[in-house]
């Protein structure tokens, strides 16, 4: 597509929440006043040094930041090309990058006087992070999770319940992340007076894509500083997996205006792009769902299609609107990895580095396995290890034993 290159890739969205044609506020009237309130509250919080100071305290002492930027020596040797660094988001409290955003939103909810928090979750990482911070701050927590995902991510369901959250298995539609989001929106419309909707990714109505991006940008900002300390320069490339795209946006955004940095997002290709998959950019087109215009998987009538991925966290037929825009302006390259490629990467990283990744970032590792060997040895490649694989051990164990 012929779209003029902007002066900066970091200036969006406009005041109506648009990144190019993407984004916006496509929600029922019942929610509109609250979304406008949220935007006001967020603008005020951003300008308040006390808010940032309080958040920094929790990020350091509760979440455990900064997360290390780790040189993956054996993976680098094995692939024989680029020098690979892992941004260790899986070492955060709760085991993934999700906590960065949840902390910010829970602090906003507290400022807005909301006592009841709802969330949707796919793999359960966002649900666990939300349940954790609700426990920490004494807030009621209800997590919507597709019934299919409740089955395949049992460890996280148990964790959420131990943390005092109510997990509601969603039986409607495809019974995965998209339906969990529908059900969370229905709850929100019903309980809008006392409820804060803590969205887990860079999607939904404005201002969510922006505020989630801002809370996650700590990943890229730390990476920039750490790489400067270790190698004395910018990385040459970044790789991250994408469902809705929050870990990717968090890593990418601080580097968007550094033209020497190549950026790769990895969607879930499921059984392959000609079969069932969850790669919205590779296999979708612009449409409107869940409050925003973005790339979606759908049929000729505009009906949303079932996504498929081995990874519950990527099993969603859409993507954050800013990613759709970065795709159209050509700043980020969007690739995809299949279930089988992700499984192979899951095992490779476990055996070479002693790090069991979640199935989500295993998709990013799978593309690193393709990209790194083609790059010179002085090429610095950063991959976001967005979550740890404990939650996936039972599922992957079953698959591997079944294959033997």
């Amino acid at each position: 597509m012929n779209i003029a290159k902007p002066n900066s890739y970091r200036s969006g969205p406009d005041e109506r929440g648009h990144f190019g044609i993407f984004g916006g506020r496509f929600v029922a009237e019942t929610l509109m006043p609250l979304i406008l309130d949220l935007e006001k509250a967020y603008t005020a919080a951003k300008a308040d040094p006390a808010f940032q100071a309080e958040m920094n305290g929790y990020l350091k002492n509760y979440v455990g930041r900064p997360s290390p930027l780790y040189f993956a020596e054996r993976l680098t040797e094995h692939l024989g090309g680029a020098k690979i660094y892992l941004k260790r988001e899986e070492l955060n409290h709760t085991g993934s990058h999700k906590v960065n955003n949840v902390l910010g939103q829970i602090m906003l909810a507290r400022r807005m006087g909301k006592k009841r928090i709802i969330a949707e979750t796919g793999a359960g990482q966002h649900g666990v992070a939300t349940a954790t911070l609700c426990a920490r701050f004494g807030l009621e927590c209800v997590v919507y999770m597709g019934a299919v995902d409740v089955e395949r991510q049992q460890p996280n369901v148990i964790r959420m319940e131990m943390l005092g959250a109510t997990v509601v298995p969603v039986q409607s539609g495809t019974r995965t992340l998209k339906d969990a989001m529908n059900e969370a929106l229905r709850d929100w419309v019903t309980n809008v007076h006392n409820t804060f909707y803590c969205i887990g990714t860079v999607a939904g109505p404005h201002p969510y894509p922006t505020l989630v991006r801002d809370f996650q940008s700590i990943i890229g900002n730390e990476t920039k500083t750490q790489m400067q300390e270790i190698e004395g320069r910018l990385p040459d490339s970044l790789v991250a997996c994408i469902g809705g795209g929050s870990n990717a946006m968090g890593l990418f955004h601080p580097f968007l205006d550094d033209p020497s940095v190549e950026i790769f997002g990895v969607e879930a290709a499921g059984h392959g792009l000609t079969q069932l998959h969850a790669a919205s950019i590779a296999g979708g087109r612009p449409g409107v769902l869940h409050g925003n215009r973005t790339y979606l998987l759908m049929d000729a009538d505009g009906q949303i299609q079932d996504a498929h991925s081995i990874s519950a966290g990527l099993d969603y037929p859409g993507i954050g609107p800013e990613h759709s825009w970065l795709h159209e302006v050509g700043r980020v390259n969007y690739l995809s990895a299949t279930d089988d490629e992700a499984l192979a990467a899951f095992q490779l990283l476990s055996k070479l580095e002693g790090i069991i990744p979640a199935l989500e970032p295993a998709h990013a590792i799978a593309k690193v396995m393709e990209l790194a060997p083609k790059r010179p040895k002085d090429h610095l490649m950063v991959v976001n290890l967005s979550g740890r694989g404990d939650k996936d051990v039972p599922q992957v164990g079953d698959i591997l034993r079944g294959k033997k």
Partner: protein
Amino acid sequence: MTTRIDTRFAELKKEGRAAFVTYVMAGDPDPKTSLEIVKALSKSGADVIELGIPFTDPMADGPSIQAAGLRALKVGMTLKKTLDLVRDFRKSDNVTPLVLMGYYNPIYIYGVDKFLADAKSAGVDGLIIVDLPPEEDDELCIPALKAGLNFIRLATPTTDDKRLPAVLANTSGFVYYVSIAGITGAAAADANVVGDAVARIKRHTKLPICVGFGIRTPEAARAIAEKADGSVVGTALVDALKNSLDAEGRATAKTVNAVAELTAALAKGVKGAQQAAE
């Protein structure tokens, strides 16, 4: 421009009674039966017909209307076939106002300009699109008004006095007041609370105000009709339809009658309402 909606509300005002507005899902349980149901609605006393556009992800609808949409999609209903249904209905009824209600994505994918032209020529009078608040008026609302269709906006309990003017600015036909914060088919609306809300909105507009969400019985429809310019019933009709289906979800000999009988009873309730003097 005057649509069938404007004409109908002008007539009702002369008669001094409230409108009975019905909702069913297009293509539920199949396109042929659905056409017969829509015809039966107007014959049984519906003053305005809302026809749902099936969508996979109806975020503001409860289980009954979600299921109705899925039944329609399962038998291959599309937006194009929904417009065909309207065109067929217009062969036998050219006066009853017909409003399409649904979500934006199928229209966006159909193409806004083509959709508006096709809808107008098929005999559609107005649109209610749940996920298009005034902040997104450029998408469909303004083009729809230019194309000669009414754009009926939802006002809700969370729409305060400060926001009402923005919500009402480009609204035409009537205002749909959502009686509760919630999804379709949920809790019942309290007629007195609704009365206060209608009075509040009336201070900002001369348009008729119809009230929906949570109205299931002739008594409830009547109580609301005494406080507003119209009562909207959807989920109760969709449930009556569903209860008439066979085990595989197919229409039976009872299906059209089941909807028609409930419609007649509800219409009687609305028509028995004593309207407050204005």
